């Protein structure tokens, strides 16, 4: 088998912020920061905002301090997904093997497509052009012999970059790559590397493999492989999600159980809808609560049988919430399901508790929403005119 593969990683540049700038051209050239809720975190910052030190995952209040004249916008996930779908549709024209990593990232396996589409560089230029024409957003592309290097390459010349790492250039490229640019190196490993004076990826290879295994176990093997630029993981289209969750930070801390209860119901509805769309069911329900003092508590419960029914998820989450015991105001609440199962469902003999009816209700609501939009039908408890 030939070992030479051709992998392309496409990463949209400051995606959410870029979409906002496209939708509202007045924002072009201005520092745009997405994540406007008073107490949330920055989900994206445009390149104009970055010189001020604004980074994603930074608390919004901090970003406001750093960049007081920035344009702070709320997250419009629906819209970003819509643009993301357009991007993915373009990518899927160039290879059957497209792995959607997240809303703004994807990996393509271009091995063996040269005859059809031409050289990877030519494809990259075409893809960048098509994405810009269709969505108005720019992206950065990395081309390399494997997924790991392609991802590093895409990050190399952001924004609107294109970096190619050829097989024969791998060693010299990595020799001068700071270890912080290597994905998948955790905090502990970074600390160890710093203590050992390992600054560049190439320095890792100055110690024998056994040295890293002694210190990091199985991760040592991975680190040594990564430092050599080895990554055998295949591009897997349609990676199935392993869990599904929904959470939100409140504008004001909440203490009333009834109010939290309604949020739980909202999250349960959203998650169960996601599950049904993906044709899977969750076996474990969990609840996450962040208190005013930032202490986080999670609790979970495994169900007797996997479910995609909003009422079952809501009831379980509600019981969990009550078992947590709320002694102080709540900042954030979230519901999640994991332990997802796909495929066939075992039929039931008895319909205790009217479960079949509740499931039918979900399906009916899905159908109405499909036709009349998200607000086409709302549960009475969640209704606000």
């Amino acid at each position, binding site marked *: 088998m030939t070992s030479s593969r051709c992998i392309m990683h496409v990463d949209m540049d400051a995606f959410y912020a870029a979409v906002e700038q496209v939708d509202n051209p007045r924002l072009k050239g201005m520092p745009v920061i997405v994540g406007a809720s008073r107490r949330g975190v920055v989900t994206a910052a445009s390149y104009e905002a970055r010189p001020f030190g604004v980074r994603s995952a930074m608390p919004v209040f901090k970003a406001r301090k750093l960049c007081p004249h920035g344009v702070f916008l709320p997250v419009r996930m629906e819209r970003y997904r819509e643009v993301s779908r357009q991007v993915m549709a373009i990518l899927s024209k160039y290879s059957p093997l497209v792995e959607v990593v997240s809303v703004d990232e994807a990996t393509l396996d271009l091995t063996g497509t040269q005859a059809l589409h031409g050289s990877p560089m030519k494809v990259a230029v075409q893809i960048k052009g098509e994405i810009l024409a269709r969505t108005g957003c720019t992206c950065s592309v990395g081309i390399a012999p494997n997924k790991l290097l392609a991802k590093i390459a895409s990050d190399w010349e952001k924004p609107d970059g294109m970096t190619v790492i050829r097989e024969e250039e791998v060693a010299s490229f990595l020799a001068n790559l700071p270890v912080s640019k290597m994905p998948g190196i955790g905090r502990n490993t970074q600390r160890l590397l710093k203590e050992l004076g390992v600054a560049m990826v190439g320095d890792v290879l100055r110690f024998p493999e056994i040295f890293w295994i002694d210190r990091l176990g199985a991760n040592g093997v991975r680190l040594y492989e990564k430092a050599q630029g080895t990554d055998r993981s295949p591009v897997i289209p349609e990676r199935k999600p392993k869990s599904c969750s929904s959470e939100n930070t409140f504008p004001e801390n909440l203490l009333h159980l009834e109010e939290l209860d309604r949020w739980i119901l909202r999250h349960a509805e959203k998650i169960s809808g996601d599950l049904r769309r993906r044709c899977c069911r969750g076996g474990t329900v969990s609840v996450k609560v962040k208190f005013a003092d930032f202490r986080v508590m999670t609790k979970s419960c495994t169900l007797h049988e996997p479910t995609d029914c909003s009422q079952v998820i809501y009831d379980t989450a509600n019981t969990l919430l009550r078992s947590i015991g709320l002694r102080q105001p709540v900042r954030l609440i979230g519901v999640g399901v994991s332990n997802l199962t796909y495929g066939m469902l075992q*039929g039931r003999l008895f319909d205790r508790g009217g479960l079949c009816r509740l499931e039918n209700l979900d399906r009916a609501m899905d159908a109405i929403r499909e036709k009349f939009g998200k607000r086409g039908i709302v549960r009475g408890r969640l209704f606000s005119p």
Partner: protein
Amino acid sequence: MKFTAEQAGLVHVLQKVLGITEKKTSMPVLCNVMIQASEPASSRIDFSATDLELSLWTQIGGTVITPGSTTVSARKLLEILRELPQKKIILEELANHRLYVEVGRSRFELPTIPASDFPYLRVPTETQLEPCESAILRTCLEKTFYGIPMDDDPFSISGLYLHQAGPDDLRFVASDGHRLVFYQVPRSNFGWFQSGTASGGIIVPRKGVAEIIRVLEKETEIVAGIQENCLIIKTPSTTLSVQLLEGEFPEYELIIPVERPFQLELERETFQQALKRVAVLTDQRWRHVRFILSEGSLQLDGGNPDLGNASDVLDVEYDGEPFCVAFNIRYVLDAIQVMESDRIRFEWVDEFHGGVFLGVDEPAYFSLIMPMVI
């Protein structure tokens, strides 16, 4: 307390008792077996154990030197006795409340808990117990045991339901909410069963059913009865009391399709072997087998993207419409494994209603399995 008894007899009684003792409990005394040596003249040693729901009393002959009683870990005592030579064993409660076990040059001392701390168990009275056909009872329990779920859940009860069916029959029913099995026998075999109980039936917990089967394995002469919400099974040497479960068994009769317009007969052995082959490529997450039925053939398909796919074809006498249905393969294997009939009959309505698996020469047996759906 001091007595001697044969190793083999002691191992035998402790094996009987061990299943009853609790493994994980907040009451350590429930892990123990109570040993009572009565007056020297009777030369009888009694053993009893309970988990508060199941209780068992049994006895062996021996030579009582000093009467008395104590309790000791059933598991440890059995483990020790198993390793000892087949000789007379000396057991004695020492002044420091340890149980001393001696044979030849081997000596053991086990901690005890005083007999006074052992829960008071009212020994069932002999009256009101009626003779019971041990072999038939054992068959009824063994045929239906697989259908009893390990735990209670909102859709099922972890117990075997006994109730009167029609004027002359008694039915043993189990269901885990996904499948149903029952075995029906003439009531005349079970004079002890009082259908006068409130709901018209009784529910025997799963652990109780397992213990009754164990007791019946070696005994043919038994009497049985229901006393104070407990099912009592008594053999010449052993008495077992099983507390019945409260709660209502689902109205299972409503979900059995009365009209089952389609049917198919299969050789049990051939069918079972084909299922076992397909089952190799099923696992916890992908457990279905697809029955793809067309004129003259039944194709069994199983498998999944991770493990691979399996397919097997059986020649069958069928000339109806093509039909496809999927079941949990484990459930189908369970249902046919307990059958004795050489031929089985599969009856169905459609791919959404439960499929019925019957023994052609075994009218007492009925099993129904809900299909798997997408």
